């Protein structure tokens, strides 16, 4: 049995705004009968103010699909269309005090129905660009399509890299076999690919990189470090986190992990990923450490 929050159960057993809405002037139909989830969202929008005066839904789906639909209608009533479009699937899940990872797609469906209904109201075409695959990482709700896309886009080779880019595999580690299979599949299908290098039996110690053409000056080094941090910040910010440079002491680079990153169970994986990038960029072995590890009198 899923562990549904009390709020999910409450919205499932007593759904708000269920059933057809006669005066609807924006209707969004999304979902797939194949996956067992489909949703019709009906909006009554004030043409003057673009305020959503009423919202109803009809849902074919499981407990959390129905609860997510109910929650969405409650959340967007009284919002303008532009405000409503800012509601993310995470917001829907948060409103319900969280959803099991297998069920996050129910909240995605709600957000997409909203986009479709707004497009319908505005007389626009809405097409869905979202593709969903089998759930691989249950700790972070990452599916196969997302992992495959990220592996292709970034030419990833190891489970550790996949974890750094997507978080998949960073929790209980039960999905590592599944991630390895995706890596092998992508490698096999990419043109001119060599064979897949088997993953190391245990977390790898960084391999010594090729020596750089010349030794970097301290200013050049700091600049490069900043560049690496800049490149990873958007990814961390997407998860409501951030990172900035605290200090460089020899081969040790200290960083402040901020926002959602601080205290995150993925901290080690995040730092490991940054360290790998640093080593590649700087061409030397360095260690990336949280600023809390800085010696007291530095």
């Amino acid at each position, binding site marked *: 049995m899923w562990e549904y929050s009390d709020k999910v*159960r409450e919205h*499932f*057993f007593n*759904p708000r705004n*269920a*059933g057809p809405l006669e005066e609807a002037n924006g209707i969004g*139909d*999304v*979902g*797939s*009968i*194949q*996956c*067992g*989830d*489909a*949703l*019709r969202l009906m909006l009554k929008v004030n043409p003057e103010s673009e305020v959503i005066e009423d919202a109803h839904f*009809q*849902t*074919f*789906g*499981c*407990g959390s*699909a*129905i609860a997510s639909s109910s929650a969405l209608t409650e959340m967007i009533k009284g919002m303008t269309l532009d405000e409503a479009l800012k509601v993310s699937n995470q917001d829907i899940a948060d409103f319900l005090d969280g959803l099991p990872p*297998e*069920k996050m797609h129910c909240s*995605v*469906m709600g957000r*997409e*129905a909203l986009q*479709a209904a707004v497009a319908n109201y505005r007389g626009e075409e*809405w*097409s*869905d660009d*979202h593709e*969903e*695959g*089998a*759930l691989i990482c*249950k700790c972070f709700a990452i599916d196969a399509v997302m992992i495959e896309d990220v592996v292709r886009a970034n030419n990833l080779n190891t489970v550790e890299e996949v974890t750094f880019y997507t978080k998949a595999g960073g929790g209980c580690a039960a999905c590592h076999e599944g991630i390895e299979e995706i890596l092998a599949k992508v490698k096999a299908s990419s043109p001119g690919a060599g064979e897949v290098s088997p993953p190391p039996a245990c977390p790898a110690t960084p391999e010594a990189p090729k020596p750089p053409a010349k030794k970097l000056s301290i200013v050049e080094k700091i600049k490069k470090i900043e560049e690496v941090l800049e490149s990873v910040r958007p990814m961390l910010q997407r998860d409501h986190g951030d990172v900035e440079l605290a200090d460089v002491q020899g081969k040790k680079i200290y960083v402040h992990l901020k926002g959602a990153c601080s205290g995150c169970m993925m901290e080690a994986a995040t730092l490991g990923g940054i360290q790998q990038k640093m080593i590649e960029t700087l061409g030397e072995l360095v260690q990336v450490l949280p600023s809390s590890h800085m010696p007291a009198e530095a």
Partner: protein
Amino acid sequence: MEPIYLDNNATTRVDPSVVETMLPFFTEHFGNASSMHAFGSQVGKALKNARAQVQALLGAEHDSEIIFTSCGTESDSTAILSALKAQPERNTVITTMVEHPAILTLCEWLEKEGYIVHKLKVDKKGRLDIDEYKSLLNDRVAIVSVMWANNETGTIFPVEEMAELAAAKGIMFHTDAVQAVGKIPIDLKNTKIDMLSLSGHKLHAPKGIGVLYLRRGCRFRPLLRGGHQERGRRAGTENSASIVGLGQACQLALEHMEAENTTVKALRDKLEQGILSQVSHCFVTGDPRNRLPNTCNIAFEYIEGEAILLLLNKLGIACSSGSACTSGSLEPSHVMRAMGIPYTAAHGTIRFSLSRYNTEAEVDRVIAAVPGIIAQLRKLSPYWGEQGPASANGGSFTPAYA
């Protein structure tokens, strides 16, 4: 409100007399059956007795054909891997599209390892095509593994006939009979079945105990090697309390076999008719005329199974569903898909599986509860209009894929 348990194909309540039989084996009879002293020999005698009880239920010719394992899945894996190891010149496995994951997941892995797996198709009532089966029997086939009865629909496969056909070509035959044992009469000595898996917790014995029946003379390679337990065919100290419990459960199953096929069957039929006569747009899946006496699987169209289960659960009624959501996968049950059940119905399949503990009063309560739940969810469904399916009333619902 007393809860009503109608999920006996998932697991069963341990019979109180089984618990009673087991308890001394946690206390005074704690010995290791392999030991020379009295502590051990008491346990050894109890195991021998339990083996005979299992033998009687299965109709096996010899008690040495009974190998105790830890579960049905272990028995399944042992059987198939043994056949492949013992006959390295044979590289093919024949099974069906609708097996339990204990077989199918193993077969998927075997395919990755380079073996050839043929999965027999089923028709819309879940029946096999025996001509297709015959055409696949050749000297590259190491083993045929076909379930005796399907866990979702209860549909019974003609395993005795299929075993004869395999034997005529010199091919080993295994059946996963975890759903059939204890529900329908089995007499292995008069069949050509070489191996059979059973699981204790499906017949009122505890979880964590299973059996592999291995016909005398059938070539065998153990999965677990170590001590001489189970005549060296399954090493590891015997789970004596559970073995004794399983023996008692098998004896009870034999005593209740007739009731299972009369009383329990009548309750199942009453439940089914009670639901079908009140709810429109629903139907029984599988082969209703040839199925286990305790199982009834109904597809409720245009609504989703997990939502049905949650509402039933609120009324204290426990059963299971073949919807995608209940499994956490993206597709409804592979059994429903193999039978070509449309998606609008496959997601709404509910399995009611009874046992000898269920009563007529319980069945009446379920019959009273189901129609309201179905109506309530259909009211929420975009596929359902005022009086019936939305498409039948001029409207239609064709969502963008999300």
